[in-house]
């Protein structure tokens, strides 16, 4: 196709104001309209919306477009969406190119003029490139119906059961010696006060009994290779491994659900609450262990009379974590309830910043606690309560000074036991896990979802899903919902049996090949065969994964990496620098 026959449509997305507040989208449109081959240019609020996509479909039909460029978010976000629109309009999906003017432009630059110039360069690069795009056939590979679930807490157990009960094999890998995760350390759950053990035991039993689930205890993922539908995972003993541990094994899986959970905030990082120094200042998890053991006692073995519960320890603070850990408020109310049932006549003070009671039954539970005579004291998060040892004449262990926000008075309350509501924190090994499965972490260490609102369990790596508290603090219902959502996404993929992958692989122009075999040596997949008779190289497209290393190395320049051809990339370079 010569340039004269090109009919390119260029669409510049405002992304609400995400792009438009920094990039002058109209200036990008004006620039694009003057480029060779461009016949339609538009800017629109949300190109990925249904009207946005319909606009492209309609233009392809009415204006006989044969190439489409969308300047919007990252292709990792919406390339698939727009390719589908091309298909709907009957145009080969590879006649499409995206210019990333959001993640790599409007979100990282604040100089509007310079950002607009960069957005123009990116768009021009895409227009120049798309001119050389070629139609490619769809390529399908088998979807392996097995799934790897990493983490045996409530999220992992739920995802594993959901998949296995639909009839598909699951490899469930748990780092510790037992299933249950952090939930196994909890006594009753808030706000309905069901025992955590009831929630867990049923699931753990079902997991162990289900023959489709293979459980690997004291194990971890060691290596992962492959891609969606066709991963190879090496599972081995956790850490350095113990002498009795099972040897490493390799399993084939089509999908992965990461459910690695959280760790609790280390209260000793905050010195002013005296944790580690005052014997009866304990963390919520230490108190939980007492509840599970059925005996609430001070270190000295006495039954405490005065309890103080301090909220937001490590959470919602400038020094530690800015986020809310979401479960501590209700857990604190649950403690007040459990203390009063176990020790009638005990006094409970609840020292909080704000009471976050957002979930089903939470507000009602808060009201019940207020009516049950728990003393609620509000403190300003910049003015934390002070805990000190009581004097010999006080009939309590400690005194807590709270600058009570609502009354505006400084109030001193007695305490024999102080419970610090420690928040959730990303696990220290989260970076290692992210690295193994190639997903991203935010600045707090939580795994990042593909889209925070619309795609909360997928990640930017296809076939890898996240569920539960490894993505951010959340309570049990949200965790379970995510685990089931991840399983549903995987089941939908399995049901289609095949998955479409990019029809990109390398091809050797056998006529021009000089037979030097440079490519044969460097192919990581041994996908290039050498025909001894004809003294030519040939690519086995079933084995080729399209890295393009051969194309870059071919001294004769006769290996074509489809959809990443020299011509396409050189045109893009020219466009960017024009």
């Amino acid at each position, binding site marked *: 196709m010569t340039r004269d026959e090109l009919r390119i449509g260029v669409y510049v997305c405002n992304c609400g104001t995400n792009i438009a507040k920094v990039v002058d989208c109209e200036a990008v449109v004006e620039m694009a309209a003057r480029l060779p081959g461009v016949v339609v240019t538009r800017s629109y609020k949300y190109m990925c919306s249904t009207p946005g996509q319909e606009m492209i479909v309609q233009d392809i039909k009415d204006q006989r477009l044969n190439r489409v460029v969308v300047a919007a978010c990252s292709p990792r976000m919406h390339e698939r969406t727009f390719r589908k629109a091309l298909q709907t309009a009957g145009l080969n999906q590879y006649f499409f190119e995206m210019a990333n003017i959001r993640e790599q432009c409007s979100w990282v630059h604040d100089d509007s003029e310079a950002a607009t110039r960069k957005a123009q360069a990116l768009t021009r690069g895409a227009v120049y490139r798309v001119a050389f795009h070629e139609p490619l056939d769809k390529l399908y590979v088998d979807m392996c119906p097995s799934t790897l679930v990493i983490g045996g807490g409530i999220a992992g157990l739920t995802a594993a059961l959901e998949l296995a009960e639909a009839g598909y094999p699951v490899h469930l890998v748990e780092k510790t010696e037992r299933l249950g995760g952090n939930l196994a350390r909890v006594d009753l759950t808030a706000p309905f006060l069901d025992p955590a053990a009831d929630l867990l035991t049923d699931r753990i039993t079902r997991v162990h009994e289900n023959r489709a689930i293979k459980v690997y205890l004291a194990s971890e993922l060691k290596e992962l290779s492959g891609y969606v539908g066709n991963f190879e995972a090496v599972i081995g003993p956790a850490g350095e491994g113990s002498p009795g541990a099972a040897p490493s094994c390799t399993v084939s899986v089509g999908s992965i659900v990461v459910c690695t959970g959280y760790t609790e905030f280390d209260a000793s990082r905050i010195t002013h609450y005296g944790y580690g120094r005052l014997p009866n200042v304990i963390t919520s998890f230490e108190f939980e262990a007492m509840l599970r053991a059925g005996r609430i006692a001070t270190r000295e073995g006495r039954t405490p009379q005065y309890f103080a519960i301090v909220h937001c320890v490590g959470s919602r603070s400038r020094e530690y974590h800015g986020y809310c850990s979401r479960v501590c408020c209700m857990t604190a109310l649950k403690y007040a309830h459990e203390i009063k049932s176990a020790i009638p006549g005990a006094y409970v003070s609840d020292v909080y910043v704000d009471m976050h009671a957002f979930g089903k039954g939470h507000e009602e539970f808060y009201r019940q606690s207020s009516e049950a005579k728990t003393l609620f004291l509000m403190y300003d998060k910049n003015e934390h309560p002070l805990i000190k040892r009581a004097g010999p004449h006080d009939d309590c262990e400690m005194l807590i000074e709270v600058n009570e926000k609502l009354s505006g008075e400084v109030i001193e309350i007695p305490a024999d036991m102080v419970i610090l509501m420690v928040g959730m924190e990303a696990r220290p090994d989260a970076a290692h896990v992210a690295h193994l499965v190639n997903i991203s972490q935010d600045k707090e260490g939580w795994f990042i979802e593909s889209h925070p609102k619309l795609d909360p369990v997928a990640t930017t790596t296809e076939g890898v899903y996240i569920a539960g508290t490894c993505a951010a603090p959340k309570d049990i219902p949200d965790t379970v919902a995510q685990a089931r959502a991840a399983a549903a996404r995987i089941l939908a993929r399995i049901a289609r049996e095949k998955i479409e992958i990019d029809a990109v692989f390398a091809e050797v122009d056998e006529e021009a090949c000089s037979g030097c075999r440079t490519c044969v040596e460097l192919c990581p997949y041994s996908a290039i065969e050498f025909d001894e008779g004809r003294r030519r190289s040939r690519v086995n497209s079933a084995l080729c994964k399209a890295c393009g290393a051969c194309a870059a190395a071919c001294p004769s320049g006769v290996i074509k*990496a489809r959809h990443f051809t020299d011509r396409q990339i050189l045109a893009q370079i020219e466009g*960017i620098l024009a």
Partner: protein
Amino acid sequence: MSFEPKIVAFLCNWCSYTGADLAGTSRMHYPPNVVSIRVNCSGRVSPLMVMSALSKGADAVLISGCHIGDCHYVTGNWQTEKRVPLLKKGLEALGVDPRRVRLEWVSASEGARFVEVVQDFIAEIERLGPNPIKGASHDRRAACSL
């Protein structure tokens, strides 16, 4: 007018491009002098592409891929690691400062590292000044004066 370097960055789809996207989703900031081109693997970047960028107006070229051992294509970045030093030698022979081509490993989770790499590289190219061969192949007068 002060010198605003133009840098073309070849980023591999699996690690560095995702890392650059992460810098965006995390709303980190860096100067707009770098424009990226997505390739499947850093191993796809041929000397031809780098030379083309330098001759068509780029002051520098960044090549970035997965860390060694993490390549999505197993050994693709090994090829890059072998190729870039050779390319730099070739550039030196042509009278181009080899510091104008930089190879860096940035993973999908290293948005902050991507920003650091870019800032550092821009600062270095600002010190080096404009690329002398920029536009040379198209500039007849320059060719005649040789």
